[in-house]
């Protein structure tokens, strides 16, 4: 081309337009590859963080005014650190620089300070005279002189004057909406105070008080979920669970020991939600004891066990998640998460044994205050602790259940809810839907394809093929709507009729074929390629008759009520929108896909093979079975694969024609929840970059890779087949 320019035979303009076209087209080609890789890469990029390991890093050490610390905490956004000390002084520090930003003196001698569960900004302070004071922190941001400034403020939610509590050794307080419950003990006597209809800014109303004596030597107390019960634990790990609601019916629910294998218990704490207790022992095990209600009453069972390097002496829980940090005798940290059973990270922090420690509300900072003048902070990089390979695919023992199970339940109204992210029920539902769809579609599509390609008169084939294409083009939302709103009620009402079709139709056809063979051949031969058309009214009539025969079947085989029969005799529950409906409707969506590929494969079988076989005396049917189908079988296989790919990823039909409950049951009369439908329902609501969001992306990635693999397999098989036809 350059020569052409030089010799002046090609004008500059034409040369450049040619070049430009080349580039643009090349770019277009690159864009296709780019698009495919971008889809894959982007999905992977969103999913990847759930695979990243967690980490703990030392962040900042700073010296502070000498005071004996009782509690440290971090503000909601992680900007300020609070230290409460024994002289009743609350110091606030900037979390980035360690500079003091405010200090308040309450003028009390405090001996104990605790967060009021489940808040992250309200504290109960117990003074030397056994009086309780409630304090909340608030952080006000202003831009007065152009720079951002954070001003911590103290608030007293109920009253500035501390409340006398009598003799107290340890206590726990839980504040839920308008109810505050305080449990405290003096020896084995537990005092419960219920404050109802409380309101912020008003003094606490008079408490309903009740005391109960525990059977254990109480050293710590934990109020259970919704103040329904109370865990009293002794230093040696003896547990007493007392039901405290309703408040006039206090009763013991459970008692027992939390020790395992006779190891000595070294620390006990309750996780967020208070459905399980973490128990550390001197052998280096940390055991999760879960509470659940079975027919034998309330029980605690060890759900899972962690092993850490050195025995833990205490455990710090995350305020908004179920994770916790174990601290060993050397002051080293180990980060753990129960749901996934993961030991996430450890760090040789070397904290002093008397340090007070807390994890920030967003679980990204750990702060420790040592006696008398050191504060240390540690960065926690731990976005998705609840996810592991086994928690995604295996059975997981969730809080409140008797045993490990597969479950998908991504969200709930409660803040202390343990999300259940098992992909297994969804994968099961996806395959179940595809399975029933294929059972219905594959025989019809392949048989139809064989007939169309091999037996059908060309004139009929010329309009059968476009009709099937039209079928492929029917929007799935319409099929789903017909399945869910039209077919599902019909099947529910006339179940026996619908089931009888599967027997009556083949029987009717068989009889008709028999009858046909009795006609003189002179007549029948003229209709050779038109069976498909002749048989259509027969099908319609047979289905109509089957509907009429339904009640007869119902009486004969199902005792008058088929749904009740399936329930009572076979133990199969019946949902209105179930796998049978999905199988039929999604089958209709898949038939054209399988049909047209299989038809191509059968049609493309070289004619000399067929003629050879026929010439050797085989009947057309023998030729079909022994020669044509055998040759075309890879093509039919790839047709089924592609059909399966379509069934696996279909969204609207499943969404509309099933109940979308994540069951793990092959029962054809119950629904399922598939990956695709689950994504469509949950992704718009999922918080961006949360674990839930990333798992939904993972579900999409799984679908993508699965269908991509299926299609590639099918495509490779087809290309090989084409090459073989070429060589034949």
């Amino acid at each position, binding site marked *: 081309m350059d020569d052409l320019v030089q010799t002046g035979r090609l004008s500059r303009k034409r040369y450049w*337009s040619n070049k430009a*076209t080349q580039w643009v087209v090349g770019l277009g080609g690159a864009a296709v590859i780019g*698009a495919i890789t971008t889809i894959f890469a982007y999905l992977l990029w969103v999913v990847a963080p759930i695979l990243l390991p967690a980490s703990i890093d030392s962040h900042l050490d700073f010296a502070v005014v000498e005071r004996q610390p009782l509690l440290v905490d971090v503000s909601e956004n992680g900007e300020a650190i609070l230290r409460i000390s024994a002289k009743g002084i609350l110091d606030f520090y900037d979390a980035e620089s360690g500079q003091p930003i405010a200090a308040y003196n309450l003028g009390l001698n405090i001996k104990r300070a605790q967060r009021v569960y489940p808040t992250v900004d309200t504290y109960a302070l117990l003074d030397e005279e056994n009086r309780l004071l409630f304090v909340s922190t608030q952080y006000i941001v202003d831009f007065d002189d152009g720079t951002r400034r954070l001003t911590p403020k103290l608030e007293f939610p109920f009253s500035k004057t501390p409340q006398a509590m009598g003799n107290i050794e340890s206590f726990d307080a839980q504040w839920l909406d308008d109810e505050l419950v305080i449990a405290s003990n003096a020896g084995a006597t537990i005092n419960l105070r219920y404050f109802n209809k409380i309101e912020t800014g008003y003094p606490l109303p008079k408490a309903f008080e009740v005391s109960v004596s525990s059977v254990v030597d109480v050293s710590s107390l934990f109020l259970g979920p919704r103040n329904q019960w109370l865990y009293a634990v002794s230093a040696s790990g003896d547990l007493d669970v007392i039901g405290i609601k309703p408040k006039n019916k206090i009763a013991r629910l459970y008692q027992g020991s939390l020790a395992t294998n006779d190891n000595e218990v070294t620390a006990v704490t309750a996780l967020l939600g208070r459905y399980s207790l973490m128990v550390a022992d001197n052998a280096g095990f940390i055991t999760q004891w879960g509470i659940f209600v079975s027919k034998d009453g309330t029980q605690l069972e060890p759900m899972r066990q962690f092993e850490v390097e050195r025995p833990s002496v205490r455990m710090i829980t995350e305020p908004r998640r179920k994770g916790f940090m174990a601290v060993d005798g050397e002051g080293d940290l180990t980060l753990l998460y129960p749901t996934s059973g993961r030991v996430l990270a450890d760090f040789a922090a070397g904290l002093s044994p008397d340090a007070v420690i807390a994890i920030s509300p967003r679980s990204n900072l750990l702060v420790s205050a040592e006696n008398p003048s050191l504060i240390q902070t540690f960065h926690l990089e731990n976005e998705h602790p609840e996810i592991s390979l086994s928690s995604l695919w295996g059975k997981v023992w969730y809080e409140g259940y008797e045993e490990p199970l597969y479950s998908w339940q991504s969200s709930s109204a409660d803040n202390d809810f343990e999300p259940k992210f098992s992909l297994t029920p969804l994968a099961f539902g996806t395959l179940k839907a595809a399975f029933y769809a294929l059972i219905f579609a594959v025989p019809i599509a392949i048989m139809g394809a064989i007939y169309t390609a091999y037996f059908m008169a060309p004139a009929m084939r010329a309009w059968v093929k476009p009709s099937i294409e039209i079928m492929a083009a029917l929007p799935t939302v319409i099929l789903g709507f017909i399945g869910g709103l039209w077919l599902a009620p019909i099947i529910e009402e006339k179940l026996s009729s619908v089931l009888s079709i599967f027997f009556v139709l083949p029987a009717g056809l068989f009889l*008709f074929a028999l009858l046909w063979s009795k006609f003189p051949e002179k007549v029948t031969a003229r209709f050779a390629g038109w069976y498909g058309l002749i048989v259509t009214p027969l099908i319609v009539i047979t289905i109509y008759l089957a509907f009429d025969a339904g009640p007869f079947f119902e009486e004969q085989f199902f005792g008058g009520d088929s749904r009740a029969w399936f329930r009572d005799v076979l133990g199969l529950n019946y949902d209105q929108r179930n796998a049978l409906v999905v199988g039929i409707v999604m089958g209709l969506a898949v038939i054209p896909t399988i049909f047209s590929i299989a038809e191509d494969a059968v049609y493309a079988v070289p004619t000399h093979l067929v003629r050879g076989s026929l010439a050797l005396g085989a009947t057309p049917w023998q030729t079909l079975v022994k020669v044509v189908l055998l040759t075309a079988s890879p093509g039919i296989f790839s047709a089924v694969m592609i059909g399966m790919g379509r069934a696996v*990823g279909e969204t609207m039909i499943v969404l509309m024609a099933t109940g979308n409950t994540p069951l793990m049951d092959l029962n054809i009369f119950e629904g399922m929840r598939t990956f695709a439908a689950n994504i469509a329902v949950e992704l718009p609501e999922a918080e961006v970059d949360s674990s839930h969001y990333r798992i939904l992306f993972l579900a999409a990635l799984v679908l993508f890779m699965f269908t991509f693999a299926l299609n590639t397999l099918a495509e490779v098989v087809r290309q090989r087949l084409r090459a073989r036809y070429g060589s034949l």
Partner: protein
Amino acid sequence: MAKSNSFFRSWFASGEPWIWMNAAAVGLSISAVVGILLLIAVKGLAHFWPSDVDLITYTTETAQVQQVYGEFVELDQVSVEQFLESGGNPEWVQPNAEIMDRWLVKTGNRRISAPDFRWIFVDQISARTTPDDVMVLERIEWGNAYGVPTTLVTGADPSAPISGPTLVAALNQSIAAANDIRDQISDLEGGILNNINNRLERLRLEERGLLLKESEDTERLQEISAEQATLAAEYAVSERKLRGLYRELDQDELVITTADDIEINVRVADILHAWQPNAMSGLQKTGQYFSNLWRFLSEDPREANTEGGVFPAIFGTVLMVLLMSLIVTPFGVIAAVYLREYAKQGVLVRIIRIAVNNLAGVPSIVYGVFGLGFFVYFLGGNLDQLFFPESLPAPTFGTPGLVWASLTLALLTVPVVIVSTEEGLTRIPRSVREGSMALGATQAETLFKVILPMASPAILTGVILAVARAAGEVAPLMLVGVVKLAPTLPIDGSFPYLHLDRKFMHLGFHIYDVGFQSPNVEAARPLVYATALLLVTLIVGLNLTAITLRGRLERLYRGVES
């Protein structure tokens, strides 16, 4: 016996029964397609027919004789067993009967006499007449009302209520006047007031943008506040006018008597349309039918989408699909040209081709997920940071919208265009290219002047198929831009006229939403069928066009090849 055995053996060996089974599979598939299309067509089209309103006298379960006006919807049969199980009156069962017939009757008058659909057992009906004077009122809210009109109180002369033979004419006049005022109101609200609001919003954003940039342009700031003041004044004028129109609208009132002799007052402002079906001739009914059909196509939905029309959904679907085809056509054609004309046919091209084929098989929901993550949150979020910082944290493009939906569907349908175009390019004989080059044309000239024109039917087929596919897709749209009710169309009279960031309505999603999410499924069902019919017509029409085009193309090249 032996004879029949040998007959069966040879009959099975001939394969005849199996061939019949295979033929039946084809028949079953075809009847399924035809059946579905017929079902949708019949149920969808029947909805608009102004059916007669019966006056039905029947005995209720509590043994009261009741009269209702209602439209017959469907006949249903219940088995006696079911009837008794659900607590039915055993005295109603005929001796030796196994099934009982019942009618579903639409009785309307929601909020006055519940329920608006009732089951009436045929045996309990003592009388059924079709009185000529019963009138159907299509109300803006609460569905249809059925009754005999008695008086019309007009605002013009409240002391002289109209009744008797002039009533119907006066009522129609009053309804026409009300419709006229309503049009004016919607013009004012949707046009002038909306425009002023948009301009005010733009000024507010500009002001905020200047402040964010700490601009010293006080002159512009003053201008802005001056403009704001003028606009506010304009707004006040239009609003006064609007209030006047509302007052004018709210004047006439119609009194109708229901079948059980209750008088209801209906504001004429609440009536969209009134007709007396029993008095209408077949021709009038046909006219009414087409008018109903037209209103379904041209009006906005009402009552949580369970009534009214689907115009915004049609508009949204068409606009989205148009935008999509603007994106997908060049992209798909260029890619196909690259694969067929420019790239060296080797392993890489084979891999790309397999990948393109595979993309067509990737579930559409995966594209939706990708679109939401990549287009909406990643691209859109960054666009907002760069170009619309003044409206943050309210997202402009960082939220699902029209442009992202079009892009996502373009990505979804690009394999269709590529495959079809490639097919067209393959059919063009090598000799054509060589001839063009031999005459001295460059490769680009050959492409533009010879190859692409020859391939244009194939490209068109691909684009039509892509459009048909995109029009029927719902799952990805649920993630990237569709809403059940969009307050405004994506195109309107305020700058920049085409609002790519807006959410839109879509026929397919409308079906899902109304059929499965609406509170009153029974009332909405006919509408869902009608919407489904519309969508099916659109898609089947597009596909038939593509099939015809392809057929023509095949015939065309048969000539070239030989």
